[in-house]
């Protein structure tokens, strides 16, 4: 945001004022205040980011402003839009505010659009309701809106159904719908969390542009500190229903004053923290946080003093910021240790660089094609080229990260290596055994050496089994224990190993948080003493602080047991932190591979370059973002020649003719691009 706009808006009265907003739900005989006394102010043309981990009340704050709460919720405080108190409006008047003056876009574009109505019809509803536009006029306006949010060929798209659009397109349609009412305030609830990085970069840029053009206020709700650093003018951090820190972006990034914020930043995995454990926040958000008499973060705070548990701190102004912590209060500051220097990057642990001689897993020419069958005789009419020729090798004790956007086939590679999906062609050699030809009992016995950890900690455990049964499943399947007692002992040992108390073994999965569930899943995989673990996005469903715990655990297990990891992820910061080598996949093929540090610091393939540059980062400093247009093509009909050519800024004629061969760059690096050929 330019300085001119900021200074112009400073003098105006705020567009949205929230004072003492409290939202409570009936819970167990009393009430749970999920939002507890939140104060916010938004000016026109300003982007205000509300940051926090899941369950901190940030989305609930947005829903409370729009009064879109489930029945039974109690709403208190004051929400003024241009002076008018929204909480005092009758419901009918409120409906004229929603969509017209305040619009909202949601996280999940797949479920926010009605699948049986065309895109145009859904936008038209808003136009009809709020602006009374109909017929030709409305259609023209819809076309304008679609063009404005950057949908190519709006004349065709207007009559299409949501399922015909990609995820990024759907989010654009959602934005067009939100803009249709010409709102003064746009609330975006995690607008890019479900999208890939390159698409995320497109959508964020679009939001920025629209806001500038229209002078809208934007309330951005997110958990991603990188997005905040890129987008926000002002930031508020929420914890347990309260705002704990509020600041301008520049101040926020420079001085993180609240201990929680500080920890959050330190928990971010980054390349420069390689080899050292990430900072974690011990424990979890207390369940009945509104009953805590003192500071709600005190239980997990590293500088907490007795005072913190007795009295609740107020939001104190400190040099243009507002912080809810006694440590910044001049009256009490002396009691606290001085805050440690902003995370110091130390040298990476040496000795992790040597290349092991013999690879544990060797994959060559791996192909997985899914036939598309039609008609009575199930004739094959086409193929999904999910994985189309992948080579890789992992040595014991090393981590290979497989990076790519959704749909590029990286999960299929993992499953094909484990023989959970039989490859169409190619070889998978594990410890000098060819896995693709193994069958029946032999394969079943071999399975114990290769294990799997999943992304979604909620669907990866059978809800009807106790933790003991879940963890012991491999022990039973591989006949590794003789009796019940031995089994329980072994399970207890495994639980301790992943940092859980053995007593939890008689509980059910639903009693655990996401991070704890992921630990149980790791224990289940460890039970059979594997040598390679395929981690399929193990942290992408988790909050930053929990992600740090799981990454630390994985790193520790690798050090202790010499495990090899195939780490499938779309998160490049995690790659930089954890992986030794990285392979970048695009549409079924690896386009670049090499040591992680080298690849991330100096990406060569245009796709890798775009990917690396599109990641929103916390560090300041201008850097060129290479913007990719369009969506990845379909694996059913991959483009001829280089798959990336249609989106590549450097595409030449020959890129469309043949797939580029492997070009070795030395130090174990190679790339498949004509730019480096010859």
């Amino acid at each position, binding site marked *: 945001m330019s300085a001119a706009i900021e200074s112009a808006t400073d003098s105006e009265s705020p567009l949205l004022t929230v004072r003492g907003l409290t939202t409570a739900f009936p819970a167990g005989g009393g009430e749970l205040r999920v939002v507890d006394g939140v104060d916010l102010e938004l000016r026109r043309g300003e982007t205000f980011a509300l940051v926090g981990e899941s369950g901190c009340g940030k989305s609930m704050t947005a829903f409370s402003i729009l009064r879109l709460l489930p029945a039974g919720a109690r709403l208190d405080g004051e929400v003024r839009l241009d002076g008018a108190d929204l909480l005092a409006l009758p419901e009918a008047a409120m409906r004229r505010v929603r969509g017209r003056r305040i619009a909202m876009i949601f996280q999940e574009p797949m479920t926010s659009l009605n699948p049986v109505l065309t895109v145009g019809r859904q936008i038209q509803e808003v136009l009809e309701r709020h602006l009374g536009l109909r017929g030709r006029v409305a259609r023209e306006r819809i076309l304008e809106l679609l063009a404005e949010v950057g949908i190519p060929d709006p004349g065709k798209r207007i009559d299409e159904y949501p399922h015909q659009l990609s995820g990024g397109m759907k989010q654009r349609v959602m934005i067009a719908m939100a803009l249709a009412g010409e709102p003064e305030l746009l609330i975006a609830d995690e607008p890019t969390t479900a999208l890939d990085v390159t698409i995320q970069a497109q959508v964020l840029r679009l939001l920025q542009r629209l806001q500038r053009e229209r002078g809208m206020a934007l309330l951005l709700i997110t958990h991603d500190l990188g997005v905040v650093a890129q987008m926000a003018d002002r930031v508020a951090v929420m914890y347990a229903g309260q705002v704990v820190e509020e600041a301008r972006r520049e101040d926020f990034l420079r001085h993180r004053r609240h201990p929680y914020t500080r920890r959050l930043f330190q928990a971010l995995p980054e390349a420069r923290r390689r080899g050292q454990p990430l900072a974690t926040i011990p424990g979890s958000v207390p369940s009945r946080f509104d009953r805590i008499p003192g500071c709600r973060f005190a239980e997990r705070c590293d500088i907490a003093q007795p005072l913190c548990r007795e009295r609740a701190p107020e939001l104190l102004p400190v040099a243009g910021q507002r912080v809810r912590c006694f440590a910044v209060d001049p009256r009490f500051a002396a009691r606290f240790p001085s805050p440690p220097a902003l995370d110091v990057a130390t040298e990476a642990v040496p000795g992790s660089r040597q290349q092991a001689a013999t690879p544990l897993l060797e994959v060559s020419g791996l192909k997985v094609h899914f036939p598309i069958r039609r008609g009575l005789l199930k004739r094959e009419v086409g193929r999904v080229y999910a994985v189309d020729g992948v080579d890789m090798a992992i040595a014991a004790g090393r981590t290979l990260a497989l990076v790519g956007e959704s749909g590029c086939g990286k999960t299929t590679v993992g499953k094909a290596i484990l023989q959970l999906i039989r490859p169409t062609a190619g070889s998978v050699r594990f410890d000098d055994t060819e896995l693709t030809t193994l069958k029946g009992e032999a394969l079943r016995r071999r399975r*114990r050496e290769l294990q799997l950890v999943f992304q979604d900690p909620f669907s990866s*455990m*059978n809800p009807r089994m106790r933790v003991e049964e879940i963890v012991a499943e491999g022990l039973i399947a591989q006949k590794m224990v003789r009796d019940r007692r031995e089994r329980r002992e072994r399970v207890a040992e495994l639980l301790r190993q992943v940092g859980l108390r053995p007593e939890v073994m008689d509980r059910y999965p639903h009693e655990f948080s996401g991070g704890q569930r992921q630990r149980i899943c790791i224990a289940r995989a460890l039970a059979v003493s594997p040598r390679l673990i395929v981690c399929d996005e193990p942290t992408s469903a988790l909050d930053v602080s929990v992600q740090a715990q799981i990454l630390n655990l994985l790193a520790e297990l690798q050090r202790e047991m010499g495990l090899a990891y195939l780490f499938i992820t779309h998160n490049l910061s995690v790659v930089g932190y954890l992986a030794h080598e990285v392979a970048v996949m695009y549409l079924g093929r690896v386009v670049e591979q090499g040591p992680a540090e080298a690849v991330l610091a100096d990406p060569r393939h245009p796709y890798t370059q775009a990917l690396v540059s599109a990641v929103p980062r916390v560090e300041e400093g201008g850097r060129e973002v290479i913007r990719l247009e369009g969506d990845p093509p379909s694996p059913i009909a991959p483009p001829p020649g280089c798959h990336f050519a249609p989106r590549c800024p450097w595409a030449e004629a020959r890129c469309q003719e043949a797939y580029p061969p492997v070009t070795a760059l030395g130090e174990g690096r190679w790339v498949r691009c004509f730019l480096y050929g010859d």
Partner: protein
Amino acid sequence: MDRVDFVTLALLLGLPPTLFALLAVGLDAKPVILWTDALLYLLVAAVTGFVLYARRRQDLRDTWRAVLRRPLGMAALVVLSAYGALGLVDSVHFRLPVSQGEGGEVHYAGESLSLFDLMATPLREGVEKTYSAPLAITAFVKETVERADGTRVREYPRLRYGGAHLDDPSRHRADVAARALWGAAQGALVAVAAFLLLAFLLARRHGWSWAEAAGRVLRGETTLPWWSALATLTVLLVLAGAVVQLAGGYHVFGTDKVGNDVLYQALKSVRTGLIIGTLTTLVMLPFALVLGVMAGYFRGWVDDVIQYLYTTLSSIPGVLLIAAAVLMLQVYMANHPELFETEAERADLRLFFLCVILGITSWTGLCRMLRGETLKLREMDYVTAARALGRRPGAILARHLTPNVLHIVLISVVLDFSGLVLAEAVLSYVGVGVDPSMHSWGNMINSARLEMAREPMVWWSLAAAFSFMFVLVLAANLFADAVRDAFDPRHARN
């Protein structure tokens, strides 16, 4: 399993043998175990086992408590238990000794009786000449009666049993009212006793005083709605008390064409209805569960074969299939009378086969549903994890898929129950249902066809069958609703 569970299990499983033993000693009776009896015991044992299992599984315990936490669910359960108890008492069969032959040889009656028959002996044996209205003391039609003085009069003759204890017919109404009130009072007394017992048990468990426990139950301040159970029980007991008292002197629901007590028939029909409703499910379940889960998990040709099977089966009209099978069975049974020792055994086998046939024709719906759910579940990560750990397909089906589709099984079983009870009535009406000699609501309704056509109308057979069936089906449906609400993941749990 703790000690209490063992005791409960032992008691429940030991009950039928003990009853037989007592009967054998006390009455010199010869126990008869009919096919359906055996299966019913098996079912009771299975349900008991499941209850004990569910008590230890926290997830199951919580959902079942959610079923019982609904006042209507609790009330329905009380009504269903009453029917169930009646059905069980009616399922303990034996043959009484008739004569002592020479050398201590005992001959047994050709007719096998149930424990319920024994309890309802006055009803069973109080056979009138023909129709009589409910609670009447005279027959329903005029007869020519020869007086002592030789004159012949056409009048409504007094019944042989109904109101026989009344010397003065004018006291009829007063006597009926007195008996009904007295019975109701007795019932209420038992209800109060039950209330006190409940209060005592609750007081002991929660450490309350008696008065506090009683107060909490009445004000509905207990976690489970005991007041609802208690209210239902009271209504049932008051009605039962009145009916028992009245049945001692009258035919409460009148008599049918050959003078049999209609109340007795309606009560005997309870067992038939329950057996059709439950055993059919028992027959159907293995097909539906195994085939459905297999089709969903293995896909490919297994799926093709199973789908082919159930699409074919479900495109044949069910009634046609049932009629054909029952008629064939009938012919077979008629040609082989030597296979059956008693008439009851023959009727029972027909009932059993009716259950089997109904089961075979009705598994397709559930199978289709289970296949769909399994298709969804097989893509879950925990199934993939089990495969990656080297679990065999059989273990995955048994440990991961089946437990996670059981809620669908349960919901459809309780929903099907009432449908099957009604199906029996329809099939018996059409003539392809249970044996005509067997008491069933369908048979009662079938015979009511002619009774409704005559003038004056004989309505009580139909009314009795209708009301008994209605209460059972209503209770089953209400219970099914509660079960579905608690088990269906699509319904939000509060």
